[in-house]
């Protein structure tokens, strides 16, 4: 197990390395000039040139890469070209909201989606099944921002149950946190719920056809025990997998949701950084999200063995 985790962690190194090189090159090939953003509309070309020099943007690409990479190995991700703040500080400030919302989303999604999928599979080919799956398709076919607006309209504007926007960290009070995090989480959850519910259903359908389910029934086990104790645990691996890979989807959704609900998270940070060509921030962000993605999937893989004792690493 430990060896496996070690091996997997080692395997992330080339992955992140490729990501790093890829992102670095991609960014430098992208048109845009952080110096111009910094200086504003009325700067003259000579002024821009001087600023670029100061920022080290005129160095040869290889030099820039080596410098950045060397610093990164020392844990220094540089400073933002635009706001001149330390990237590590900047990112760590913004990580909290995103992670909290993402976690809440995952919890909500799993709590909603898994029972939905289980019931749909259990009532296979009935209207319940049809309703659950139609909802899933709908969850897939409405853009995130539309869902966000609709939720705001209903729960924040009409019913006034929760604030329209903003973020409060759990340390500001659980109530404040929940009232602000619930709508963004629900928004994000729609796609995720759709994804997980469908996967749960598919996986459960397969498992419910297995012999051991018949065995359980032959033992006179109650139906809910059959579903949740016997079937669900066996269906867990594909569900976990989709939770892991779906995480990428979540990251896309986060970018939009953070805009709609005005949450100071890393999604907006990244988009802002890309639009401003704030290279150190973009590089840090993409490495971070890639790292998180890899880590989440590692956790998912390791958790397989918790659900399925046959899987041993």
């Amino acid at each position, binding site marked *: 197990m430990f060896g496996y985790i070690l*091996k997997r962690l080692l395997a992330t190194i080339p992955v992140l390395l490729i990501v790093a090189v890829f992102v670095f090159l991609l960014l430098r090939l992208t048109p845009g000039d952080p110096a111009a953003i910094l200086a504003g509309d009325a700067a003259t070309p000579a002024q821009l040139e001087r600023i670029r020099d100061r920022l080290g943007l005129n160095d040869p690409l290889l030099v820039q890469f080596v410098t950045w990479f060397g610093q990164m190995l020392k844990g220094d991700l540089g400073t933002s070209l635009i706001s001149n703040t330390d990237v590590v500080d900047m990112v760590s400030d913004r990580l909290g909201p995103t992670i909290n919302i993402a976690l809440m989303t995952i919890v909500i999604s799993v709590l909603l989606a898994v029972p939905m999928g289980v019931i749909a599979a259990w009532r296979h080919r009935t209207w319940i099944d049809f309703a659950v799956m139609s909802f899933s398709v709908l969850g897939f076919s409405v853009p995130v921002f539309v869902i966000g607006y609709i939720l705001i309209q209903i729960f924040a504007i009409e019913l006034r149950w929760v604030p329209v926007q903003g973020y409060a960290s759990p340390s500001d009070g659980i109530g404040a946190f929940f009232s602000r995090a619930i709508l963004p989480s629900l928004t994000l959850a729609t796609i995720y719920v759709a994804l997980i519910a469908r996967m749960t259903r598919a996986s459960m359908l397969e498992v419910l056809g297995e*012999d051991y389910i018949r*065995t359980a029934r*032959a033992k*006179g086990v109650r139906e809910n025990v059959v579903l949740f104790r016997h079937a669900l645990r066996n269906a867990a691996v594909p569900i976990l997998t989709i939770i892991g890979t779906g995480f990428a989807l979540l990251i896309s959704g986060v970018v939009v949701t953070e805009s709609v609900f005005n949450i100071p998270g890393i999604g907006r940070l990244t988009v802002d950084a890309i639009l401003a060509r704030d290279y150190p921030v973009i590089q840090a962000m993409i490495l971070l999200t890639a790292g998180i993605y890899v880590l989440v999937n590692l956790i998912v893989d390791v958790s397989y063995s918790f659900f399925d004792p*046959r899987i041993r690493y």
Partner: protein
Amino acid sequence: MKFKTRDLSTAQRVLKIRKLKVGLTGRPDAQPVLNEIDLDIRAGETHCLVGESGSGKSVTSLATMGLLPKDALEVQGGLIDLEGFEITNATAAQMRDLRAQRVAMIFQEPMTALNPVLRVGEQIEEVLNMHTDLSKSEAKARTIDIMEQVHLPDVQRVYSAFPHQLSGGQRQRIMIAMALVLDPDLLIADEPTTALDVTTQLQILKLIEEMQERHGTAVLFITHDMGVVAEIADTVSVMQKGEIVESAPIRELLTNPQKDYTRKLLKAVPNLAPRPARAVSEKDAVLNVDRLEMTYGGGGWFRKSEGVRAARDVTFDIAPGRTLGIVGESGSGKSTVARCIMRLIDPTGGEVTVAATEISRLSRRNLQSHRKHLQIVFQDPYRSLNPRWTVARSLCEGPINFGTPKSEAMERAAELMELVDLPKDALDRYPHQFSGGQRQRIAIARAVAMKPDLLVADEAVSALDVSVQAQVLDLLDDVQDRFGIAMLFITHDLRVAAQICDDVLVMQKGQVVEQGPAAAVLANPRHDYTRSLIEAAPGRHWDFANFRALERAPAVEGPIA
């Protein structure tokens, strides 16, 4: 051969099935799956249900358990009376109460019938939790007790093991423990030993018998192995196409079957007396295997693993027109040898010479032209044909690879269809439109289309039921006669080996323990392992095809180990 001859007519009747009709859900007009069957089982009785595949044996058992798949099958008439309780119109809750307490079931596949993610102890205990008020510790004690009763070793450890950590036989013991923990009146066993090798099968059969005696349980035992039937049954019902065609005490049925179908079924059972060997060929051997070695795995990233030595020092040869059988229990390395010879895997040592060419070390490309000399037929008829290809395309693939023009290949394919006794129009159909036996014929035709010198048949008939098995064996025999092909026949069924092989090679744990003419090996096994294999074969003293005991019983007489 000793049959059970107990008189059970005074015992209490546990199960009474009358005019039971089961059909496809919502389609009462369609051909019923079970057509008005009657069945009686009394306490302490072992009733065997035999019949070809698809005849409705499992459906009968599921109907009795109230476990018919609702969206596919439904009871359309008749009654199932379990000690006075009418099952066909019981509610779900009533049915749940009944199960495990009054009627329990063991399934065929011990691999899949246990939940892989729960500890086996828990799975047994669950039954107690569901149906009794025992406290946690009482339940555990009871579980340990029943596990000991089924002779599981090291019960404390096994209690908290997961199914995959147990052997097939151990798993089946767990299943039996689970079924019997509440002392049900009726135990249904649906082919509980089919997936096990002979030695384990014997142990399980004895265990069921022991438990039955201890608890006075009635047993409905489903199987298609007449040997098993002969060994354990008090009474037998023969099923065909959803009907019970004949029902009789065991001796009566085996010595004096009344119905044609029963006779046909019995005639198809090969017996353990070896066939007369074919004339020894004068020609040079087609296949020479010399000190073949195969070790799986080994290596690894962080620590070197030992690897599985699946074949060690295997040496034999086969002459044209002769059949060599490899027998041995599961995991003994039979398939490994076959796959090495076919170069589907690369042997780690030794030599394989086919048609005078040493192929064990040829590169894949150089190997290509030698492929036509050797062909293989696999066990699983459902997976050995590409489901997306028409039969014609599958049959032509090989010849076209070796330059035969398409039209010629098609003609040849048509001839082959005749050879394997399938209609010509079958060429345009897809595999799923055929039964297992038919598919196996197609697979044989495909191999024969290459005009190979050597045909490897890896458990080619193991998945088929007796009557179909007999037909396919006949076909192989026929093909071999006609083309003079050498055959390597792998099986774990000694009856089959006896029927088709000239020579037999017995493998155990990757090693050849005994090797020689079939008559010699099967009649006079010298190695203990061979002997135990033969002795474990159920019903080995009975000559089913001739409705009498074997005149010359194979192997030494003596108590069954």
